[in-house]
Protein backbone atom coordinates (compact mmCIF):
# COMPACT_ATOMS: atom_id res chain seq x y z
CA UNK A 1 0.00 0.00 0.00
CA UNK A 2 1.23 3.52 -0.64
CA UNK A 3 2.25 5.54 2.36
CA UNK A 4 0.63 8.82 3.29
CA UNK A 5 1.86 12.00 4.87
CA UNK A 6 0.07 14.16 7.39
CA UNK A 7 1.27 17.38 8.99
CA UNK A 8 1.60 17.38 12.78
CA UNK A 9 -1.05 20.05 13.06
CA UNK A 10 -3.45 18.03 10.97
CA UNK A 11 -2.78 14.94 13.03
CA UNK A 12 -4.04 16.82 16.06
CA UNK A 13 -7.14 17.80 14.15
CA UNK A 14 -7.55 14.16 13.12
CA UNK A 15 -7.33 13.01 16.74
CA UNK A 16 -9.85 15.58 17.88
CA UNK A 17 -12.17 14.64 15.05
CA UNK A 18 -12.04 11.03 16.19
CA UNK A 19 -12.74 12.10 19.76
CA UNK A 20 -15.67 14.26 18.74
CA UNK A 21 -17.03 11.27 16.84
CA UNK A 22 -17.13 9.45 20.16
CA UNK A 23 -14.13 7.18 19.57
CA UNK A 24 -12.40 6.05 22.72
CA UNK A 25 -8.69 6.76 22.36
CA UNK A 26 -6.06 5.37 24.70
CA UNK A 27 -2.76 7.13 24.11
CA UNK A 28 0.48 8.19 25.71
CA UNK A 29 0.50 11.09 28.15
CA UNK A 30 3.12 12.66 30.41
CA UNK A 31 3.27 11.42 34.00
CA UNK A 32 5.69 12.88 36.53
CA UNK A 33 8.52 13.14 34.03
CA UNK A 34 7.64 9.73 32.57
CA UNK A 35 5.02 8.51 30.15
CA UNK A 36 1.93 6.40 30.62
CA UNK A 37 -0.93 5.16 28.47
CA UNK A 38 -4.27 6.60 29.47
CA UNK A 39 -7.59 7.74 28.13
CA UNK A 40 -7.19 10.76 25.86
CA UNK A 41 -9.58 13.70 26.17
CA UNK A 42 -7.82 16.08 23.80
CA UNK A 43 -5.11 15.81 21.14
CA UNK A 44 -2.97 18.23 23.13
CA UNK A 45 -2.36 15.50 25.72
CA UNK A 46 -0.92 13.03 23.25
CA UNK A 47 2.85 12.44 23.31
CA UNK A 48 4.34 10.72 20.29
CA UNK A 49 8.03 11.39 20.94
CA UNK A 50 8.19 9.44 24.19
CA UNK A 51 10.93 6.91 24.97
CA UNK A 52 8.89 4.34 26.85
CA UNK A 53 5.74 4.11 28.95
CA UNK A 54 5.72 2.91 32.56
CA UNK A 55 3.29 0.10 31.76
CA UNK A 56 2.84 -1.57 28.38
CA UNK A 57 -0.25 -0.97 26.22
CA UNK A 58 -0.97 -4.71 26.24
CA UNK A 59 -2.71 -4.09 29.59
CA UNK A 60 -5.62 -2.70 27.57
CA UNK A 61 -5.97 -6.07 25.83
CA UNK A 62 -5.19 -8.29 28.81
CA UNK A 63 -6.37 -6.17 31.74
CA UNK A 64 -4.74 -6.46 35.15
CA UNK A 65 -8.04 -7.82 36.37
CA UNK A 66 -10.83 -9.12 34.18
CA UNK A 67 -14.09 -10.93 34.93
CA UNK A 68 -14.41 -14.33 33.25
CA UNK A 69 -17.75 -15.46 34.69
CA UNK A 70 -20.65 -14.11 36.69
CA UNK A 71 -22.30 -16.54 39.05
CA UNK A 72 -25.22 -16.76 41.41
CA UNK A 73 -25.27 -19.36 44.17
CA UNK A 74 -28.66 -18.60 45.67
CA UNK A 75 -30.12 -22.07 45.15
CA UNK A 76 -28.65 -24.09 42.32
CA UNK A 77 -25.40 -22.40 41.34
CA UNK A 78 -25.55 -20.85 37.87
CA UNK A 79 -22.77 -19.18 35.93
CA UNK A 80 -22.53 -17.28 32.67
CA UNK A 81 -19.51 -16.07 30.73
CA UNK A 82 -18.45 -12.45 30.75
CA UNK A 83 -16.80 -11.20 27.60
CA UNK A 84 -16.26 -7.46 27.55
CA UNK A 85 -14.99 -5.75 24.45
CA UNK A 86 -15.72 -2.19 23.44
CA UNK A 87 -14.12 -0.69 20.35
CA UNK A 88 -11.22 1.63 21.09
CA UNK A 89 -8.10 3.04 19.49
CA UNK A 90 -4.73 2.28 21.00
CA UNK A 91 -2.77 5.28 19.85
CA UNK A 92 0.99 5.72 19.64
CA UNK A 93 2.14 2.16 20.24
CA UNK A 94 5.85 1.55 19.67
CA UNK A 95 6.90 -1.32 17.40
CA UNK A 96 8.31 -3.43 20.26
CA UNK A 97 4.93 -3.18 22.00
CA UNK A 98 3.18 -4.07 18.75
CA UNK A 99 5.39 -7.17 18.55
CA UNK A 100 4.55 -7.97 22.16
CA UNK A 101 0.84 -7.76 21.28
CA UNK A 102 1.48 -10.10 18.35
CA UNK A 103 2.94 -12.59 20.82
CA UNK A 104 -0.16 -12.32 23.01
CA UNK A 105 -2.30 -12.84 19.91
CA UNK A 106 -0.44 -16.07 19.25
CA UNK A 107 -0.44 -17.24 22.87
CA UNK A 108 -4.17 -16.65 23.29
CA UNK A 109 -5.13 -18.27 20.00
CA UNK A 110 -2.83 -21.31 20.05
CA UNK A 111 -4.52 -24.64 20.92
CA UNK A 112 -7.43 -23.04 22.75
CA UNK A 113 -9.04 -19.79 21.70
CA UNK A 114 -9.25 -17.38 24.61
CA UNK A 115 -12.34 -15.43 23.60
CA UNK A 116 -11.92 -12.94 26.42
CA UNK A 117 -8.60 -11.78 25.02
CA UNK A 118 -9.45 -12.23 21.37
CA UNK A 119 -12.69 -10.24 21.55
CA UNK A 120 -10.94 -7.33 23.17
CA UNK A 121 -8.12 -7.58 20.68
CA UNK A 122 -10.54 -7.51 17.79
CA UNK A 123 -12.18 -4.40 19.21
CA UNK A 124 -8.84 -2.59 19.28
CA UNK A 125 -7.53 -0.44 16.47
CA UNK A 126 -3.78 -0.07 16.78
CA UNK A 127 -2.08 3.08 15.62
CA UNK A 128 1.64 2.65 16.05
CA UNK A 129 4.42 5.18 16.04
CA UNK A 130 8.08 4.49 15.36
CA UNK A 131 10.32 4.80 18.39
CA UNK A 132 12.97 7.34 17.42
CA UNK A 133 14.09 8.13 20.95
CA UNK A 134 14.86 4.78 22.61
CA UNK A 135 15.01 4.13 26.33
CA UNK A 136 18.64 3.64 27.50
CA UNK A 137 17.87 0.09 28.70
CA UNK A 138 16.25 -0.97 25.43
CA UNK A 139 17.84 -3.45 23.02
CA UNK A 140 15.13 -3.68 20.39
CA UNK A 141 17.40 -4.05 17.34
CA UNK A 142 18.82 -7.25 18.87
CA UNK A 143 15.31 -8.63 19.32
CA UNK A 144 14.15 -7.58 15.85
CA UNK A 145 11.55 -5.28 17.38
CA UNK A 146 12.90 -1.81 16.58
CA UNK A 147 10.58 -1.65 13.57
CA UNK A 148 7.67 -3.62 12.31
CA UNK A 149 5.82 -3.91 9.03
CA UNK A 150 2.72 -5.54 10.49
CA UNK A 151 0.62 -5.82 13.61
CA UNK A 152 -0.81 -2.31 13.27
CA UNK A 153 -3.69 -0.65 11.47
CA UNK A 154 -1.71 2.55 10.95
CA UNK A 155 1.91 3.34 11.76
CA UNK A 156 3.31 6.85 12.06
CA UNK A 157 6.90 7.94 11.62
CA UNK A 158 7.93 11.43 12.70
CA UNK A 159 9.87 13.13 9.91
CA UNK A 160 10.05 16.58 11.47
CA UNK A 161 7.03 18.71 10.68
CA UNK A 162 4.87 15.80 9.62
CA UNK A 163 4.28 12.07 9.94
CA UNK A 164 4.63 9.42 7.29
CA UNK A 165 1.72 7.03 7.74
CA UNK A 166 1.97 3.40 6.73
CA UNK A 167 -1.37 1.64 6.31
CA UNK A 168 -1.42 -1.85 7.77
CA UNK A 169 -5.03 -2.91 7.33
CA UNK A 170 -8.35 -2.12 5.73
CA UNK A 171 -9.50 -0.87 9.09
CA UNK A 172 -6.57 1.56 9.12
CA UNK A 173 -7.32 2.67 5.60
CA UNK A 174 -10.96 3.29 6.44
CA UNK A 175 -9.98 5.28 9.50
CA UNK A 176 -7.68 7.44 7.46
CA UNK A 177 -10.47 8.17 4.97
CA UNK A 178 -11.95 10.38 7.66
CA UNK A 179 -8.78 12.44 7.56
CA UNK A 180 -8.97 14.51 4.37
CA UNK A 181 -5.63 16.27 4.71
CA UNK A 182 -3.37 13.29 3.99
CA UNK A 183 -1.16 13.39 0.92
CA UNK A 184 0.66 10.63 -0.88
CA UNK A 185 4.15 10.43 0.61
CA UNK A 186 6.83 11.65 -1.82
CA UNK A 187 10.13 9.89 -2.41
CA UNK A 188 11.83 12.64 -0.42
CA UNK A 189 9.55 12.08 2.54
CA UNK A 190 10.02 8.31 2.41
CA UNK A 191 13.77 8.85 2.32
CA UNK A 192 13.51 11.07 5.39
CA UNK A 193 11.55 8.35 7.16
CA UNK A 194 14.33 5.90 6.40
CA UNK A 195 16.96 8.38 7.65
CA UNK A 196 15.07 8.95 10.89
CA UNK A 197 14.87 5.22 11.45
CA UNK A 198 18.57 4.77 10.81
CA UNK A 199 19.34 7.59 13.24
CA UNK A 200 17.22 5.88 15.90
CA UNK A 201 19.02 2.59 15.42
CA UNK A 202 22.26 4.34 16.27
CA UNK A 203 20.91 5.44 19.63
CA UNK A 204 20.47 2.05 21.29
CA UNK A 205 22.97 1.55 24.11
CA UNK A 206 22.39 -2.11 24.87
CA UNK A 207 22.83 -5.00 22.45
CA UNK A 208 22.75 -8.75 22.61
CA UNK A 209 26.05 -10.56 21.90
CA UNK A 210 24.17 -13.61 20.65
CA UNK A 211 22.08 -13.66 17.48
CA UNK A 212 18.41 -13.85 18.44
CA UNK A 213 17.84 -17.26 16.84
CA UNK A 214 20.78 -18.70 18.79
CA UNK A 215 19.39 -17.68 22.19
CA UNK A 216 17.64 -21.00 22.86
CA UNK A 217 20.86 -22.86 22.15
CA UNK A 218 22.82 -20.55 24.43
CA UNK A 219 20.35 -21.15 27.25
CA UNK A 220 20.31 -24.84 26.52
CA UNK A 221 23.89 -24.94 27.73
CA UNK A 222 23.51 -22.55 30.66
CA UNK A 223 21.09 -24.36 33.00
CA UNK A 224 23.75 -25.27 35.55
CA UNK A 225 25.63 -21.98 35.41
CA UNK A 226 26.62 -20.50 38.75
CA UNK A 227 25.61 -17.12 37.33
CA UNK A 228 21.96 -17.82 38.09
CA UNK A 229 22.63 -17.89 41.78
CA UNK A 230 25.01 -14.94 41.66
CA UNK A 231 22.62 -12.83 39.60
CA UNK A 232 19.56 -13.64 41.70
CA UNK A 233 21.23 -13.10 45.06
CA UNK A 234 19.94 -9.52 45.23
CA UNK A 235 16.49 -10.39 43.83
CA UNK A 236 13.73 -8.93 46.01
CA UNK A 237 11.06 -11.20 44.47
CA UNK A 238 9.19 -7.92 44.19
CA UNK A 239 7.72 -8.68 40.79
CA UNK A 240 8.55 -5.26 39.34
CA UNK A 241 10.22 -6.78 36.26
CA UNK A 242 7.22 -8.94 35.40
CA UNK A 243 4.53 -6.40 36.25
CA UNK A 244 5.89 -3.93 33.68
CA UNK A 245 6.64 -6.57 31.03
CA UNK A 246 4.68 -6.43 27.75
CA UNK A 247 5.21 -10.13 27.03
CA UNK A 248 4.27 -11.50 30.47
CA UNK A 249 0.75 -12.88 30.20
CA UNK A 250 0.44 -15.36 33.08
CA UNK A 251 -2.53 -14.98 35.37
CA UNK A 252 -4.24 -16.26 38.49
CA UNK A 253 -7.96 -17.06 38.73
CA UNK A 254 -10.04 -16.29 41.83
CA UNK A 255 -13.69 -16.06 42.86
CA UNK A 256 -15.10 -12.93 44.42
CA UNK A 257 -18.54 -12.74 45.95
CA UNK A 258 -20.73 -9.81 46.91
CA UNK A 259 -21.61 -9.15 50.53
CA UNK A 260 -24.97 -10.81 49.91
CA UNK A 261 -22.96 -14.04 49.50
CA UNK A 262 -25.11 -14.82 46.46
CA UNK A 263 -23.81 -12.98 43.42
CA UNK A 264 -20.21 -13.02 42.42
CA UNK A 265 -17.67 -13.20 39.70
CA UNK A 266 -14.75 -15.35 38.73
CA UNK A 267 -11.91 -13.17 37.54
CA UNK A 268 -8.36 -13.48 36.36
CA UNK A 269 -5.64 -11.12 37.43
CA UNK A 270 -2.04 -10.63 36.56
CA UNK A 271 0.27 -13.13 38.17
CA UNK A 272 3.89 -13.89 37.41
CA UNK A 273 6.59 -16.50 37.81
CA UNK A 274 8.88 -14.18 39.79
CA UNK A 275 6.41 -14.11 42.69
CA UNK A 276 7.12 -16.55 45.50
CA UNK A 277 3.85 -18.51 45.44
CA UNK A 278 3.45 -18.80 41.67
CA UNK A 279 4.32 -22.51 41.50
CA UNK A 280 2.91 -23.50 44.90
CA UNK A 281 0.35 -26.34 44.93
CA UNK A 282 -2.68 -26.90 47.13
CA UNK A 283 -1.25 -29.75 49.18
CA UNK A 284 1.72 -27.60 50.21
CA UNK A 285 4.96 -27.60 48.33
CA UNK A 286 6.31 -25.11 45.84
CA UNK A 287 7.97 -26.19 42.64
CA UNK A 288 10.05 -23.01 42.44
CA UNK A 289 10.58 -22.09 46.04
CA UNK A 290 13.90 -20.26 45.75
CA UNK A 291 14.68 -17.00 43.99
CA UNK A 292 17.33 -18.56 41.78
CA UNK A 293 14.93 -21.03 40.17
CA UNK A 294 12.33 -18.30 39.68
CA UNK A 295 14.89 -15.93 38.18
CA UNK A 296 16.19 -18.60 35.84
CA UNK A 297 12.67 -19.59 34.81
CA UNK A 298 11.87 -16.02 33.81
CA UNK A 299 15.04 -15.74 31.73
CA UNK A 300 14.31 -19.06 30.03
CA UNK A 301 10.82 -17.89 29.18
CA UNK A 302 12.23 -14.70 27.72
CA UNK A 303 15.00 -16.38 25.73
CA UNK A 304 13.92 -19.94 25.01
CA UNK A 305 10.58 -21.39 26.10
CA UNK A 306 8.29 -18.84 24.45
CA UNK A 307 10.28 -18.78 21.27
CA UNK A 308 10.19 -22.57 21.02
CA UNK A 309 6.52 -22.73 21.82
CA UNK A 310 5.09 -19.82 19.86
CA UNK A 311 7.83 -19.07 17.31
CA UNK A 312 8.21 -15.51 18.55
CA UNK A 313 10.70 -14.09 21.05
CA UNK A 314 9.48 -13.98 24.64
CA UNK A 315 11.22 -10.64 25.09
CA UNK A 316 10.90 -7.58 22.87
CA UNK A 317 13.87 -5.74 24.36
CA UNK A 318 11.86 -2.75 25.60
CA UNK A 319 14.03 -2.39 28.73
CA UNK A 320 11.11 -1.75 31.10
CA UNK A 321 12.20 -4.54 33.44
CA UNK A 322 15.75 -3.22 33.64
CA UNK A 323 14.42 0.27 34.39
CA UNK A 324 12.09 -1.05 37.10
CA UNK A 325 14.55 -3.38 38.86
CA UNK A 326 16.09 -1.82 41.97
CA UNK A 327 18.53 -4.70 42.31
CA UNK A 328 19.70 -4.06 38.73
CA UNK A 329 19.52 -7.70 37.70
CA UNK A 330 16.46 -7.84 35.47
CA UNK A 331 17.80 -7.05 32.00
CA UNK A 332 17.56 -10.15 29.82
CA UNK A 333 20.21 -8.73 27.44
CA UNK A 334 22.69 -8.25 30.24
CA UNK A 335 22.00 -11.72 31.60
CA UNK A 336 22.23 -13.43 28.22
CA UNK A 337 25.48 -11.60 27.49
CA UNK A 338 26.95 -12.81 30.78
CA UNK A 339 25.88 -16.36 29.94
CA UNK A 340 27.49 -16.02 26.54
CA UNK A 341 30.69 -14.69 28.10
CA UNK A 342 30.74 -17.71 30.38
CA UNK A 343 30.03 -20.26 27.66
CA UNK A 344 32.89 -19.06 25.45
Amino acid at each position, binding site marked *: MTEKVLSKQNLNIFINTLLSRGEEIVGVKKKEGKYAFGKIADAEEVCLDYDITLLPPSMYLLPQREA*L*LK*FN*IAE*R*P*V*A*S*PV*IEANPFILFGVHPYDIKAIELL*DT*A*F*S*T*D*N*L*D*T*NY*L*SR*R*EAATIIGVDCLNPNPNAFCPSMDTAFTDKGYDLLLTDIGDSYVIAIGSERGQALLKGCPDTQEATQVELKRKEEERQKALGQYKVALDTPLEKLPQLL*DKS*WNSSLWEERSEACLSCGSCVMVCPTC*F*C*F*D*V*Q*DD*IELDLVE*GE*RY*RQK*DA*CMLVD*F*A*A*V*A*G*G*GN*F*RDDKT*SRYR*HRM*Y*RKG*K*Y*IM*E*RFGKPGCVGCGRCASACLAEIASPAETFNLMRGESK
Partner: protein
Amino acid sequence: MTKNLSEGKSLYLPRVAEITSIETIAQKEKLFEFKFQDSKELGHKPGQFVEISIFGIGEMPISISSSPTKKGAFELAVRAVGDVTNALHRLSKGATVGIRGPFGNGFPVDEFTGKDLLFIAGGIGLFPLRSLINYVVDNRKNFGRLIILSGSKTADERMLVNELERWQVMEDVELLETVDIGNEKWGGTIGPVTTLFSQIEIIPQNTFAVTVGPPVMYKFVIGECQKKGIPDERILMSLERRMKCGVGKCGHCQINGVYVCQEGPVFSYARIKKDKLTEAL
Protein backbone atom coordinates in the same frame (compact mmCIF):
# COMPACT_ATOMS: atom_id res chain seq x y z
CA MET B 1 -6.86 -10.59 13.88
CA THR B 2 -9.53 -12.38 11.97
CA LYS B 3 -13.06 -12.14 13.20
CA ASN B 4 -13.89 -15.80 13.70
CA LEU B 5 -11.19 -16.21 16.36
CA SER B 6 -13.18 -14.32 18.96
CA GLU B 7 -16.50 -15.99 18.31
CA GLY B 8 -15.93 -19.23 20.15
CA LYS B 9 -17.31 -20.10 23.55
CA SER B 10 -15.69 -18.99 26.76
CA LEU B 11 -12.81 -21.28 27.69
CA TYR B 12 -13.63 -20.71 31.32
CA LEU B 13 -17.33 -21.58 31.53
CA PRO B 14 -17.84 -24.91 33.29
CA ARG B 15 -20.59 -27.43 32.53
CA VAL B 16 -22.99 -28.17 35.34
CA ALA B 17 -22.71 -31.60 36.95
CA GLU B 18 -24.68 -33.10 39.81
CA ILE B 19 -23.23 -35.19 42.59
CA THR B 20 -25.02 -38.54 42.29
CA SER B 21 -23.22 -40.39 45.04
CA ILE B 22 -20.60 -39.86 47.72
CA GLU B 23 -18.54 -42.60 49.31
CA THR B 24 -16.15 -42.01 52.18
CA ILE B 25 -12.74 -43.50 51.42
CA ALA B 26 -10.78 -42.39 54.46
CA GLN B 27 -10.63 -39.54 56.95
CA LYS B 28 -9.86 -36.84 54.37
CA GLU B 29 -10.76 -38.65 51.17
CA LYS B 30 -14.10 -39.15 49.46
CA LEU B 31 -15.17 -40.63 46.15
CA PHE B 32 -17.73 -38.52 44.30
CA GLU B 33 -19.82 -39.63 41.35
CA PHE B 34 -21.08 -36.94 38.97
CA LYS B 35 -23.57 -36.77 36.14
CA PHE B 36 -23.75 -33.88 33.72
CA GLN B 37 -27.04 -32.05 33.76
CA ASP B 38 -27.27 -32.40 29.98
CA SER B 39 -26.64 -36.20 30.38
CA LYS B 40 -23.58 -36.02 28.13
CA GLU B 41 -20.51 -38.14 28.75
CA LEU B 42 -17.30 -36.59 30.07
CA GLY B 43 -15.50 -38.34 27.21
CA HIS B 44 -12.13 -38.73 28.88
CA LYS B 45 -9.08 -40.96 28.71
CA PRO B 46 -7.50 -42.51 31.81
CA GLY B 47 -4.93 -40.07 33.22
CA GLN B 48 -6.77 -36.91 32.24
CA PHE B 49 -8.08 -34.36 34.72
CA VAL B 50 -10.95 -31.91 35.10
CA GLU B 51 -11.22 -28.48 36.69
CA ILE B 52 -13.93 -28.59 39.34
CA SER B 53 -15.69 -25.40 40.42
CA ILE B 54 -17.51 -24.51 43.57
CA PHE B 55 -18.69 -21.00 42.74
CA GLY B 56 -17.74 -18.48 45.36
CA ILE B 57 -14.87 -20.67 46.51
CA GLY B 58 -12.88 -21.37 43.35
CA GLU B 59 -11.69 -23.93 40.89
CA MET B 60 -9.26 -26.81 41.28
CA PRO B 61 -7.71 -29.49 39.02
CA ILE B 62 -8.64 -33.06 40.01
CA SER B 63 -7.61 -36.22 38.17
CA ILE B 64 -10.41 -38.48 36.99
CA SER B 65 -10.75 -41.70 38.97
CA SER B 66 -13.26 -43.61 36.90
CA SER B 67 -12.61 -45.55 33.73
CA PRO B 68 -14.09 -44.28 30.47
CA THR B 69 -15.73 -47.71 30.29
CA LYS B 70 -18.08 -46.55 33.05
CA LYS B 71 -20.91 -44.87 31.15
CA GLY B 72 -23.32 -42.12 32.11
CA ALA B 73 -21.29 -40.82 35.03
CA PHE B 74 -17.73 -40.20 36.12
CA GLU B 75 -15.94 -40.25 39.44
CA LEU B 76 -13.43 -38.07 41.23
CA ALA B 77 -11.64 -39.22 44.35
CA VAL B 78 -10.73 -36.13 46.31
CA ARG B 79 -8.56 -35.45 49.33
CA ALA B 80 -9.67 -32.37 51.29
CA VAL B 81 -6.60 -30.17 51.36
CA GLY B 82 -7.64 -26.70 50.24
CA ASP B 83 -10.64 -24.39 49.97
CA VAL B 84 -12.27 -26.03 46.96
CA THR B 85 -11.72 -29.63 48.04
CA ASN B 86 -12.94 -28.88 51.56
CA ALA B 87 -16.02 -27.15 50.16
CA LEU B 88 -16.65 -30.14 47.90
CA HIS B 89 -16.43 -32.45 50.92
CA ARG B 90 -19.16 -30.41 52.62
CA LEU B 91 -21.57 -30.89 49.71
CA SER B 92 -24.24 -33.57 49.69
CA LYS B 93 -25.72 -35.79 47.05
CA GLY B 94 -27.83 -33.75 44.67
CA ALA B 95 -25.66 -30.64 44.89
CA THR B 96 -24.24 -29.25 41.65
CA VAL B 97 -20.73 -28.21 40.76
CA GLY B 98 -19.01 -26.85 37.67
CA ILE B 99 -16.77 -29.06 35.56
CA ARG B 100 -14.38 -28.07 32.77
CA GLY B 101 -12.42 -30.61 30.84
CA PRO B 102 -11.28 -33.29 30.41
CA PHE B 103 -7.80 -31.81 30.03
CA GLY B 104 -4.32 -33.20 29.49
CA ASN B 105 -2.91 -36.02 27.42
CA GLY B 106 -3.81 -39.03 29.55
CA PHE B 107 -2.09 -42.40 29.42
CA PRO B 108 -1.24 -43.75 25.94
CA VAL B 109 -3.60 -46.72 26.32
CA ASP B 110 -3.42 -47.62 22.62
CA GLU B 111 0.31 -48.23 22.93
CA PHE B 112 -0.42 -50.58 25.83
CA THR B 113 -2.23 -53.08 23.59
CA GLY B 114 -0.77 -56.54 24.00
CA LYS B 115 1.78 -55.37 26.52
CA ASP B 116 2.35 -56.36 30.13
CA LEU B 117 1.48 -53.51 32.48
CA LEU B 118 3.21 -52.67 35.73
CA PHE B 119 1.43 -49.97 37.73
CA ILE B 120 3.08 -48.42 40.77
CA ALA B 121 0.92 -46.27 43.07
CA GLY B 122 1.96 -44.29 46.11
CA GLY B 123 -0.71 -42.99 48.50
CA ILE B 124 -3.48 -41.19 46.64
CA GLY B 125 -1.63 -41.81 43.38
CA LEU B 126 -4.06 -44.70 43.34
CA PHE B 127 -6.88 -42.24 42.55
CA PRO B 128 -5.78 -41.41 38.98
CA LEU B 129 -4.45 -44.94 38.48
CA ARG B 130 -7.87 -46.38 39.35
CA SER B 131 -9.14 -44.97 36.07
CA LEU B 132 -6.44 -46.80 34.13
CA ILE B 133 -6.65 -50.02 36.16
CA ASN B 134 -10.40 -50.33 35.65
CA TYR B 135 -9.99 -49.47 31.98
CA VAL B 136 -7.55 -52.38 31.64
CA VAL B 137 -9.73 -54.67 33.75
CA ASP B 138 -12.75 -53.85 31.57
CA ASN B 139 -10.77 -54.52 28.38
CA ARG B 140 -8.74 -57.32 29.90
CA LYS B 141 -8.14 -59.37 26.74
CA ASN B 142 -6.40 -56.46 25.00
CA PHE B 143 -3.51 -56.43 27.42
CA GLY B 144 -0.89 -58.78 28.83
CA ARG B 145 -0.20 -59.16 32.53
CA LEU B 146 -1.51 -56.55 34.94
CA ILE B 147 0.70 -56.05 37.97
CA ILE B 148 -0.21 -53.41 40.54
CA LEU B 149 2.22 -52.33 43.25
CA SER B 150 0.53 -50.12 45.82
CA GLY B 151 2.19 -48.39 48.76
CA SER B 152 0.48 -46.65 51.67
CA LYS B 153 1.86 -44.87 54.71
CA THR B 154 0.08 -47.13 57.16
CA ALA B 155 -2.53 -49.87 57.00
CA ASP B 156 -5.14 -47.34 58.11
CA GLU B 157 -4.25 -45.05 55.23
CA ARG B 158 -4.81 -47.61 52.49
CA MET B 159 -6.97 -45.91 49.89
CA LEU B 160 -9.92 -47.44 48.00
CA VAL B 161 -9.81 -50.60 50.11
CA ASN B 162 -12.94 -52.11 48.51
CA GLU B 163 -11.41 -51.59 45.12
CA LEU B 164 -8.10 -53.14 46.20
CA GLU B 165 -9.97 -56.17 47.48
CA ARG B 166 -11.91 -56.44 44.23
CA TRP B 167 -8.68 -56.41 42.21
CA GLN B 168 -6.99 -58.76 44.69
CA VAL B 169 -9.42 -61.59 43.99
CA MET B 170 -9.26 -61.23 40.22
CA GLU B 171 -7.31 -64.10 38.74
CA ASP B 172 -5.66 -62.04 36.04
CA VAL B 173 -4.58 -59.17 38.29
CA GLU B 174 -1.42 -59.37 40.38
CA LEU B 175 -1.76 -56.90 43.24
CA LEU B 176 1.04 -56.43 45.74
CA GLU B 177 0.79 -54.05 48.65
CA THR B 178 3.13 -52.53 51.18
CA VAL B 179 2.93 -49.98 53.98
CA ASP B 180 5.70 -47.63 55.11
CA ILE B 181 4.99 -48.16 58.79
CA GLY B 182 3.57 -51.48 59.93
CA ASN B 183 1.38 -52.26 62.92
CA GLU B 184 -0.25 -55.32 64.50
CA LYS B 185 -3.14 -55.20 62.01
CA TRP B 186 -0.82 -55.44 59.00
CA GLY B 187 0.55 -58.85 58.10
CA GLY B 188 2.00 -57.86 54.73
CA THR B 189 5.12 -56.25 53.34
CA ILE B 190 6.58 -53.26 55.16
CA GLY B 191 8.68 -50.62 53.42
CA PRO B 192 8.44 -48.11 50.58
CA VAL B 193 6.66 -49.15 47.39
CA THR B 194 10.02 -49.89 45.76
CA THR B 195 10.41 -52.81 48.19
CA LEU B 196 7.85 -54.70 46.10
CA PHE B 197 10.03 -54.74 42.98
CA SER B 198 12.05 -57.63 44.39
CA GLN B 199 8.85 -59.71 44.55
CA ILE B 200 8.05 -59.50 40.85
CA GLU B 201 9.49 -61.00 37.68
CA ILE B 202 8.78 -59.25 34.40
CA ILE B 203 9.76 -59.36 30.75
CA PRO B 204 11.12 -55.82 30.40
CA GLN B 205 10.90 -55.66 26.57
CA ASN B 206 7.18 -56.32 26.80
CA THR B 207 6.34 -54.12 29.79
CA PHE B 208 5.03 -50.59 30.29
CA ALA B 209 5.53 -49.15 33.77
CA VAL B 210 3.13 -46.45 34.95
CA THR B 211 3.66 -44.68 38.25
CA VAL B 212 1.59 -42.12 40.11
CA GLY B 213 2.38 -40.87 43.57
CA PRO B 214 4.06 -38.11 45.54
CA PRO B 215 6.92 -36.34 43.70
CA VAL B 216 9.60 -37.76 46.04
CA MET B 217 8.67 -41.29 45.02
CA TYR B 218 9.38 -40.97 41.31
CA LYS B 219 13.17 -40.99 41.32
CA PHE B 220 13.24 -44.23 43.29
CA VAL B 221 10.55 -45.91 41.19
CA ILE B 222 12.29 -44.90 37.95
CA GLY B 223 15.53 -46.38 39.31
CA GLU B 224 13.81 -49.70 40.09
CA CYS B 225 12.15 -49.82 36.68
CA GLN B 226 15.50 -49.23 35.02
CA LYS B 227 17.06 -51.98 37.14
CA LYS B 228 14.37 -54.31 35.84
CA GLY B 229 15.44 -53.35 32.33
CA ILE B 230 12.34 -51.38 31.29
CA PRO B 231 13.34 -48.84 28.63
CA ASP B 232 12.92 -45.15 29.52
CA GLU B 233 10.28 -44.69 26.79
CA ARG B 234 8.06 -47.13 28.68
CA ILE B 235 8.47 -45.66 32.14
CA LEU B 236 5.50 -43.32 32.44
CA MET B 237 4.48 -41.00 35.23
CA SER B 238 1.85 -38.37 35.96
CA LEU B 239 3.27 -35.07 37.20
CA GLU B 240 1.26 -32.88 39.54
CA ARG B 241 1.48 -29.13 39.09
CA ARG B 242 -0.79 -26.17 39.77
CA MET B 243 -2.97 -26.49 36.67
CA LYS B 244 -4.99 -23.36 37.20
CA CYS B 245 -6.59 -22.68 33.81
CA GLY B 246 -6.28 -26.13 32.22
CA VAL B 247 -6.06 -24.60 28.75
CA GLY B 248 -2.40 -23.69 28.40
CA LYS B 249 -2.64 -19.99 29.16
CA CYS B 250 -2.08 -19.10 32.81
CA GLY B 251 1.47 -20.44 33.11
CA HIS B 252 1.23 -21.94 36.60
CA CYS B 253 1.78 -25.56 35.61
CA GLN B 254 4.90 -25.03 33.53
CA ILE B 255 7.77 -27.48 33.86
CA ASN B 256 10.58 -25.74 32.03
CA GLY B 257 8.97 -24.81 28.70
CA VAL B 258 6.20 -27.39 28.87
CA TYR B 259 2.60 -26.67 29.88
CA VAL B 260 1.68 -29.71 31.95
CA CYS B 261 -2.05 -29.13 31.43
CA GLN B 262 -1.58 -29.44 27.65
CA GLU B 263 1.36 -31.77 27.08
CA GLY B 264 1.06 -33.64 30.37
CA PRO B 265 0.35 -34.64 33.02
CA VAL B 266 1.65 -37.98 31.68
CA PHE B 267 5.31 -38.02 30.67
CA SER B 268 7.72 -40.81 29.83
CA TYR B 269 11.09 -40.73 31.49
CA ALA B 270 12.62 -40.65 28.01
CA ARG B 271 10.69 -37.46 27.23
CA ILE B 272 11.78 -35.85 30.48
CA LYS B 273 15.40 -36.56 29.58
CA LYS B 274 15.13 -35.67 25.89
CA ASP B 275 13.42 -32.33 26.47
CA LYS B 276 15.66 -31.59 29.45
CA LEU B 277 12.68 -31.17 31.78
CA THR B 278 15.04 -30.50 34.66
CA GLU B 279 12.22 -29.17 36.82
CA ALA B 280 10.15 -32.34 36.45
CA LEU B 281 11.63 -34.57 39.14
